[in-house]
């Protein structure tokens, strides 16, 4: 989706001194909104704190600073607003764990009825607040096509409550309630849900996935979403050093490897059809991704679980085929999903 005009240093880096300022990322600007500012109490290397700033700063840029935000209960809400210190520099409201999309819908309705049509609404939640407890409200917001960009920061579990499984926790991951006991694989295979596809089934104007590893892709998607009206959904993978038992410095690398392994497909869809896929730049085996994470340590011990690694590899390979994640030789992509 992003045309690279020049081969040059830092095309994928945050900034690029060789680009015109208007072509640079929002994050490269010293004048960026810093929607969430310093002093928050997120863990070291928190992917969600990073993702939230990436998304909201881009939204702020796209809407010329005219943005209001609601935030469901979760890590992001907790670490950013302990009385008396807020980390938010944008209008922000937290209500409950399960009602973020409905609050956002109400905000959009209230703004429209008040004639504040330039003010845009962003809702945000973690995966628990999105795919589990908030799912009813999310689906309602989607089907009503409320004018909301809802962002799920997916760190694949209930991290704030001590790392329990959510419906976004991947198979074989060890969590506090999917312990590796006996032959248990960690989190079960064949369960869970991938909400971007469910969002697409609502045929809303825009659905996209992204990660904190590829800022330009993420910002492009936020910008694109903000250029539309109606219900829009962005699902951002945000690795969690705590819950994934990984080094804080590996957060972005993990997001990158999740994509490059094929385990996390990055794509866009409009009105229920996949319209673009972000290709894997250098395919890696799932091992490269899994081995960096303590939640998968049981797969690689002695004797380990090569059978489970193979099943995860099969899931990744299925994504590659299903979404057309690898450029074919003639440079075109072949997605079997959508048109």
């Amino acid at each position, binding site marked *: 989706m992003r045309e690279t005009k020049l081969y040059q240093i830092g095309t*994928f*880096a*945050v900034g690029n001194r060789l680009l015109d300022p208007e072509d640079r990322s929002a994050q490269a600007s010293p004048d960026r909104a810093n929607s969430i500012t*310093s002093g928050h109490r997120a863990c070291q290397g928190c992917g969600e*704190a990073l993702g939230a700033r990436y998304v909201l700063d881009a939204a702020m840029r796209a809407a010329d600073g005219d943005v209001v935000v609601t935030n469901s209960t979760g890590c992001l809400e907790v670490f950013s607003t302990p009385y008396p210190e*807020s980390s938010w520099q944008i209008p922000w409201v937290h209500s409950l764990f399960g009602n973020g999309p409905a609050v956002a819908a109400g905000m959009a309705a209230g703004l429209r009825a008040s004639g504040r049509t330039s003010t845009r609404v962003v809702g945000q939640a973690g995966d628990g607040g999105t795919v589990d407890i908030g799912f009813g409200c999310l689906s309602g917001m989607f089907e009503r096509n409320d004018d909301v960009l809802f962002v799920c920061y997916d760190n694949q579990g209930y991290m704030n409550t001590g790392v329990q499984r959510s419906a976004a926790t991947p198979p074989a991951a060890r969590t506090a309630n999917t312990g590796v006991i006996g032959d248990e694989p960690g989190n079960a295979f064949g369960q869970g849900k991938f909400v971007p596809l469910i969002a697409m089934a609502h045929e809303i104007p825009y659905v996209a996935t992204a990660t904190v590893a590829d800022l330009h892709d993420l910002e492009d998607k936020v910008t694109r979403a903000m250029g539309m009206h109606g219900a829009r959904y962005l699902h951002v993978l945000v690795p969690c050093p705590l819950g994934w038992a990984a080094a804080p*410095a590996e*957060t*972005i690398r993990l997001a990158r490897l999740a994509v490059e392994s094929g385990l996390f497909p990055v794509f866009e869809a409009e009105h229920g059809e996949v319209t673009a896929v972000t290709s894997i730049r250098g395919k890696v085996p799932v091992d490269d991704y899994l081995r960096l994470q303590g939640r998968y340590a049981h797969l690689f011990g002695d004797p380990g679980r090569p059978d489970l690694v193979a099943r995860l590899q099969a899931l990744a390979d299925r994504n590659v085929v299903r979404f057309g994640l690898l450029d074919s030789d003639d440079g075109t992509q072949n997605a079997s999903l959508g048109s």
Partner: protein
Amino acid sequence: MDLPFGITLEHGGSRANKTGSWRTERPVYVHHLPPCNQACPAGEDVRSWLYDGESGGDGYERAWRAIMEVNPFPAVMGRICYHPCETGCNRGQLDEAVGINSVERFLGDEAIRAGWRMQVDRPSSGRRVVVVGAGPSGLSAAYHLVRLGHAVTLLDSAPRPGGMMRYGIPAYRLPREVLDAEIQRILDLGVDLRTDTTVTDLDQTLREDGYDAAFLAVGAPLGHRAHLPAGSAAKIVDAVTMLHGLEEGERPLLGRRVAVYGGGNTAMDAARTAKRLGAEDALVVYRRTRERMPAHESEVREAEEEGVRFTWLSTITQVQEGMLTLERMELDETGFPQPTGETEELPADAVVLALGQDTDLAFLGRAEGVEVEDGVVVVDDSQMTGRPGVFAGGDVAPGPRSATVAIGQGRRAATSIDAWLRGAIPERVVELPLADFAALNTWYYTDAPRSHRPVLEAARRASTFDEVVQGLNRDTALYEARRCMSCGNCISCDNCFGVCPDNAVIKVDDADAPYLIDLDFCKGCGLCAAECPAGAIAMVPEEI
């Protein structure tokens, strides 16, 4: 607004919470030595001038000036340097090394085209330095000395300056107008060049002309003679003499079939020259294998493209009129060639010897303190001989023999002479740790295959001395410069500024240090260091 207590807060108050107290490690911006810089015998800060060049436009001139601070021959180097920088280039581990040499040539050519000049940096010191030999080392030293404010007299026995650049390297590799332009630019700074001036007695020259210091850069102008049993009618010439004569307008008569004996770059030059002079068959005879041949790969490849043939693992045991006897060799376990006793005969009208070059040090006479060992002048780290004030460099001094090395030694000598004249101790260069590939985060660099320079079509290469390798144009040069990964040094890419989850990187308007770490808030997660494309951030333990 009349905010409800507790649950509704003013924005941004968390900045009162200094999360920097969590930190056990802090990020520190580092400057590591890029392998290109480390490999450059001339001491160029390659990464730095590529960085300037990446901007294009004005950046080209900045880049050129950065080279010129070190090496006054970008256009020449961009043609004849064997670019160890590219061998070292980390990008070679990703796809292909950055075409540093071709960018340098582009910049050099741009400078000639645009007439960019350098200037003398310092007021006149009133000190006089004589440089003996106007080859790459002597010219380099003269250039730097004159810019440092010293009066330089440059002596050379040849009619024109340039040394082996002119008399050893054929014009199809180094067009003379390019060489002349870069030499003239040096002379224009005020170097007193005296050609056709052979120093026969160093002591006399120093004494009578009252020089405060001397740099000896007379090179190794003599072709190494090997004893070959030869018939009286056998035609044997040495490559150095042949190439020198060619430059002075001679057309050596070598016949249809020419054998060149040796495996160095001079051998390639001789063979390719022979083809251009009309030889139908140019055969390089070398006693080891292709892999062990000292000639640079690109020279060998170009020679092959031009029809030069090679006979590996062979020595010449006898030369007769129209005929050579070769003996097959085989490599022993140490890689040294051993005779096998098997011979074969080969028709050849002439044999060109390219077996290396020797110095001619007769002019030293009994110059006090100047020691000679293994045919070269002994020098210390500062290029000074045993005699205070007398320095030596280039092929006359120990070390690999190449124009680039010579230029580097010329500069080092100039710096040392300047320090010596001022009574100062030469500045020690701080040894930076090497920027290795593993420290880079190459994902951030766009996939960008190398752009190769076009070459002259074969027909013209066979018969003329036109330059074989063409330059990059503005677009391809820019592209190539932008392939640089800036190993171990900040490229102002804003990645650290962006990836910090705590907004603890501050962007400041300082080209040399564009970012500061806000230690009030940095939690020490290490994301900035892990995600720095150039490996220019290190995590350092806090003292707790």
